[in-house]
């Protein structure tokens, strides 16, 4: 049965984030309150996810390396996108990541005051990945790097729970001056990535498309491309993997009605859907 391998220190799995850092990521995410730039929302979501993953893997003796994690940014530069002391590192064990955030900020979160109200509580918020919005959208070059990382990973960990690649973008590839050709190239790159496999299944690819249009209707985890508006969204749909049954369960916990064959693809995501998609894609299912 696919996607059932235990995730343990001796048989870890991996996450690769491929993040659009093009100039358009400086635009505000529609309907966010308070207004938030897309690049800030993505950086917060990724840092929060890594914080939560570290918490889930925390044991008294240290953070257990159930996962290796890497992030690739693409915009004016293409490549590993960690900040601080980890700059330039590729896939790396979670314990090393937890030990070396670039900085630790103080953020506020609302907590129950015990009397029916909410109060602000200060929390330490580690930053590994900083917002960047600059340049074009060389999506294929980034996906090629992801392919190399994942290829190396599955060869070294042939029995692992397959790598999960989460690709977040708000735009169309600029790898070719011809949009149709660029679209075809991205489709090919995604198909190549998805074909990489361990004995437990193929690499799982999530495509999360951020909305630029305040009136656009979000489409989350469809199982058919018939309602998608254009060739570009159909390409991202085709390039995404089917949700595993555990991911379907997590999606339903979020109140998202997913059908059989639902794809790990969202179009025109707003902030809430972005965070939900990251949770659905990265919630640990079989830690040992």
């Amino acid at each position, binding site marked *: 049965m696919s996607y059932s391998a235990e995730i343990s220190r001796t048989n870890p799995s991996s996450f690769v984030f491929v993040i659009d850092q093009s100039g358009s990521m400086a635009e505000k995410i529609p309907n966010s309150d308070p207004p938030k730039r897309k690049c800030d929302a993505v950086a917060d979501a990724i840092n929060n996810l890594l914080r939560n993953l570290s918490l889930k893997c925390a044991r008294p*003796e240290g953070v257990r390396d159930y996962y290796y994690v890497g992030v690739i940014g693409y915009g004016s530069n293409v490549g590993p996108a960690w900040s601080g002391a980890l700059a330039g590192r590729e896939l790396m064990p979670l314990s090393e990541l937890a030990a070396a955030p670039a900085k630790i900020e103080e953020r506020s979160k609302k907590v129950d005051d*015990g009397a029916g109200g909410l109060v602000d509580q200060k929390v330490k918020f580690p930053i590994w990945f900083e917002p960047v919005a600059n340049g074009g959208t060389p999506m294929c070059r980034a996906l090629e790097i992801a392919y190399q990382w994942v290829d190396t990973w599955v060869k070294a960990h042939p029995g692992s729970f397959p790598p999960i690649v989460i690709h977040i973008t708000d735009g169309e590839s600029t790898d070719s001056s011809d949009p149709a050709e660029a679209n075809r190239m991205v489709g090919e790159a995604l198909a190549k990535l998805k074909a990489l496999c361990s004995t437990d299944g193929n690499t799982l690819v999530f495509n999360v498309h951020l909305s630029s249009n305040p009136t656009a209707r979000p489409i989350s985890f469809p199982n058919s491309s018939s309602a998608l508006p254009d060739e570009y969204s159909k390409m991202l749909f085709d390039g995404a993997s089917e949700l595993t049954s555990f991911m379907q369960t997590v999606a339903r916990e979020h109140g998202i009605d997913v059908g059989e064959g639902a794809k790990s693809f969202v179009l025109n995501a707003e902030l809430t859907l972005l965070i939900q998609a990251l949770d659905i894609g990265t919630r640990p299912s079989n830690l*040992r």
Partner: protein
Amino acid sequence: MSFFVSTFSLPKRGHAPHENQDSCWPSLSPISLRRTNNTKEFQTDKLVTAVADGATEGLLSEIWSRILVARAGRIDFADVNGAKLLADSRNVWGRFKSRKQSGGRRLTKLPEWLEEPSLEIGAFATLIALELAADHTWTAYAVGDSCVFHVRDDALMLAWPLNKADDFSNRPYLISSEERDDESLKAHLIGVCGRWAQGDSFFLMSDALAAWFLTMTERDKKPWQALRDLGTDDAPGTFEDFTAMCRDKDGMRNDDVTLVRIDTF
């Protein structure tokens, strides 16, 4: 009355003994030794046994599960309610943390930014406790999916609180060391009682072994026969051998495995 109690516990495959997050009561050997089994005769009018399964998602869940079984083992079943058990256990938990952290000492080897939120989340565990009384009554209470099985004359009398292998999920209700919602705990704390006869056996188990047990009964097998012999000269192998066989042949989940067996005389 005379009861023979045998306890067995092993960590997940690939884990060290000190990483075992299950606990049981009575604790028949010093925790630091973590021997995998032990047997002792109890001459008593009231025997209390318990199993708690510490959850992987909580920091120090092995300490929390140990506290829960020890408190459950000392609480009068006539007065049992979730609030008292929880309050007693949290007091012990709080003292444990304060003692460890006294003088600014760190409680873990985690990066500094991570220790505080990890401790705020706290620890989690399931619990099942069973009391056998001299008047031949028994009472059990449970939170979560650790189970008790009652066997008489080579027949299964009761499987509780779960009685089908499919009932086990990855998300049982867990007792939190930090959560203050006692109403929620009360809603999930359930009890059952019955009568026992001389010669009856009871088996308390954490979830992986309980799921295996029910799977076997659903295949018209008698899994208690193998469990009954464990630790005796009649057993074909050790508890380690038995657990390895269940994992490899019968597909038992790779989890911490704990068994408390009570034989009545």
